[in-house]
């Protein structure tokens, strides 16, 4: 931290010296931090930004997501060392929205309230405090969820393989199990990296709690989903990998031994760029199975730490990047981060065919999904709850427990893991006048 401070001071001094010597004008440098592939997205818009604001230099630093999160948490706690613009992940923004540390964009001089109508509401709400008086981040991207499946493999085992046919086939959990059975080849090919996803797909929106902070692990339809997951594992129809974020899962998706995965639209960018670039034309997308409601998975925000000394320039950059159709779409094209900025969708690129998806108009599906996602009630406990739920359900399925037992264990683990945050959440809600004893 000390080093970084020194380094930054050194950079500022040298930049100032160089610029005063060469231009004699005031030049400002802002530090923008996030995780890959955001660097490629920023690279796509910085030249245009500098045409508009030639006096602001944008320095982009990237870290791995966990390291970035750690850096943000410690620099905010320490009160120094934070960059001027930070990317915050969907699941993490809840930790900051009700407290200090970041600029309230609803207040002057930002007055971002006027931009609210242009951003998808459920995402805007995630960055807004319980009392509604503070919004600490502007929405960058969202993750309209869908399944990605190998059309050629579906076809080769005699299943319907077009989007409509697949959606109809998998409109019930029994249908999903039928597909799992059909594509299964022992020791060679499975439908999914892990069966527990059948259940957790229902909670992509991280909508675990209602406004009384009751944990609802038994939303309508989820019991059947969990039972289907248990059946799938009993029959050996899943690859039993710890998660879809494993090298072995990536390898399986690349070589056709794993046939399907569900995620936000951004996963298409992952597939085509680094997971399975050689399978171009073989993948298709479809709506989530078994009538799971339109969901969002992941996405991010850009925020300004209150300790920043270049807030004005930082805000100029954030507005340019996120609240203009051109920038959002340039970044979407560069890295597949689907814009949370609604006016951006009104562009012909959203009805274009995607050659990686065999000419399917996936973006149109994502726009439709994005329009249907219902606002959720977000809490401080969401990210811990999500981690613990995934882990407990995975454990339960591994141990071959019955569905009811898995849910009971998950509930206990989650309540244990979130005691502190729950207390704090109640206080926040009391302060906002939203808690009824």
């Amino acid at each position, binding site marked *: 931290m000390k080093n970084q401070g020194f380094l930054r001071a050194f950079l500022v001094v040298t930049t100032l010296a160089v610029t005063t010597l060469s231009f004699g004008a005031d030049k400002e440098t802002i530090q923008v931090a996030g995780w890959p592939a955001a660097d490629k997205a920023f690279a796509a818009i910085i030249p245009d930004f500098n045409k508009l604001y030639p006096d602001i230099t944008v320095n982009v630093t990237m870290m791995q997501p966990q390291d970035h999160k750690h850096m943000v948490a410690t620099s905010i706690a320490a009160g120094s060392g934070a960059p001027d613009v930070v990317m915050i992940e969907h699941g993490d923004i809840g930790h900051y929205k009700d407290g200090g540390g970041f600029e309230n964009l609803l207040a002057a001089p930002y007055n971002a309230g006027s931009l609210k109508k242009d951003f998808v509401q459920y995402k805007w709400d995630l960055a807004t405090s319980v009392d509604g008086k503070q919004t600490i981040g502007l929405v960058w991207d969202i993750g309209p969820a869908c399944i990605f499946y190998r059309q050629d493999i579906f076809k080769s085992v005699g299943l319907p393989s077009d989007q409509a046919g697949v959606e109809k086939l998998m409109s019930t959990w029994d249908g999903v199990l039928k597909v799992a059975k059909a594509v299964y080849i022992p*020791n060679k090919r499975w439908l999914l990296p892990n069966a527990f996803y059948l259940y957790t797909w229902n909670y992509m929106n991280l909508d675990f709690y209602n406004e009384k902070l009751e944990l609802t692990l038994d939303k309508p339809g989820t019991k059947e989903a969990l039972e289907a997951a248990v059946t799938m594992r009993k029959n050996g129809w899943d690859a039993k990998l710890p998660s879809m974020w494993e090298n072995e899962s990536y390898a399986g998706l690349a070589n056709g031994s794993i046939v399907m995965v569900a995620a936000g639209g951004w996963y298409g960018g992952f597939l085509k760029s680094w997971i399975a670039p050689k399978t171009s034309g073989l993948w298709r997308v479809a709506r989530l199975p078994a009538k799971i409601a339109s969901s969002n998975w992941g996405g991010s925000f850009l925020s300004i730490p209150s300790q920043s000394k270049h807030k004005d320039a930082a805000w100029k950059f954030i507005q340019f990047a996120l609240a203009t159709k051109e920038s959002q779409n340039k970044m979407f094209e560069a890295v597949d981060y689907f814009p949370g900025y609604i006016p951006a969708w009104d562009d012909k690129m959203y009805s274009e065919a995607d050659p990686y998806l065999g000419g399917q108009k996936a973006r149109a599906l994502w726009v439709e999904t994005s329009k249907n996602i219902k606002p959720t009630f977000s809490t401080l406990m969401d990210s811990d709850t999500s981690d613990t739920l995934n882990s407990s359900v995975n454990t339960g399925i591994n*141990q071959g427990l019955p569905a009811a037992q898995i849910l009971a264990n998950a509930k206990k683990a989650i309540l244990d893991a979130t005691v502190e*945050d729950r207390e*704090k959440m109640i206080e926040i809600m009391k302060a906002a006048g939203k808690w009824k004893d």
Partner: protein
Amino acid sequence: MSRVKTLGFWSTFYRHRVAYAYIAPFYILFAVFGLFPIVAGLAISFFRWDGVDPMRFIGLQNYFRLLTDGLFWKSLGNTALIGLISHVFILGGGLVLAYVLNSKLVKFQNGFKTVYFLPMVTSAVASAIVFKALFGINNGLINFVIKSMGFEGVDWWGGNGDFVKVAVIAMFSWQWIGWNMVIYLAGMQAISHDIYEAAEIDGANHTQVFFRITVPLLKPIILFTVIQSTIGTLGLFTEPYVLTGGNNLLGGTDNQAMTVMMYLLNKAPYGNNLYGFASAVAYVVCAIIIVVSLVNMKLFDRDETASTAARRKK
């Protein structure tokens, strides 16, 4: 001592100002980067603090919650089990390797030293990727060998979670064996060669030399490595974290590979921002390290006096 009293602290300090100036750099750095965080951490452990909002004093509540959290005890048990089994390989293996290299049983000693030490300087994240490939379920090398012999592949990461620890132990041992080997080797080189020669003349074989001469004379070094290992084990984080996927800090199936350090970092700053709670965890871990180290020292000390007495008898 009496001089200090008569002269007073500051005048003594002034008299020895040059000496103090020489040792100042360490103490200043230690005060800033060591002492301050240690004291501040203890203070924070009695508060509820998310890193941003004002701190709130809550007395011993963090400690109470911690000690009644089943997951903490589970992670402590995991850490102890992983540590104990790993150190059979790490310390025992390191000792044997050092003995073999020291007794000139093999050629190319420097080559072997380098090879055994290499895992130590390799990034744990990089080697975890290799170990994940070894312990892959469907495409892993170990399962490939097992399957090609006609057996069922092992479900390393699933099942009841029994096998998750195997992967962690394998990687942890592989990483640290060379480090301890080097320390033992240095210790062995300090043992006078005369003793070995005398043993050889008396007709002692390698086993006898190893257990009767090398090990007893290395006792202080072994104590050092045991204490270091205790601290290292309680700090065990990267290996289980990366091996269990690196998405969360819960240690895979049934939290079987969740170590105490993962538990701590899951409270702050990686998984959450409960700095007060995390500080309380750190202090409890610190207390455990002190207790275990004291027990180690006691055990070794007793042995030491016993063997000195035995030697005197001779």
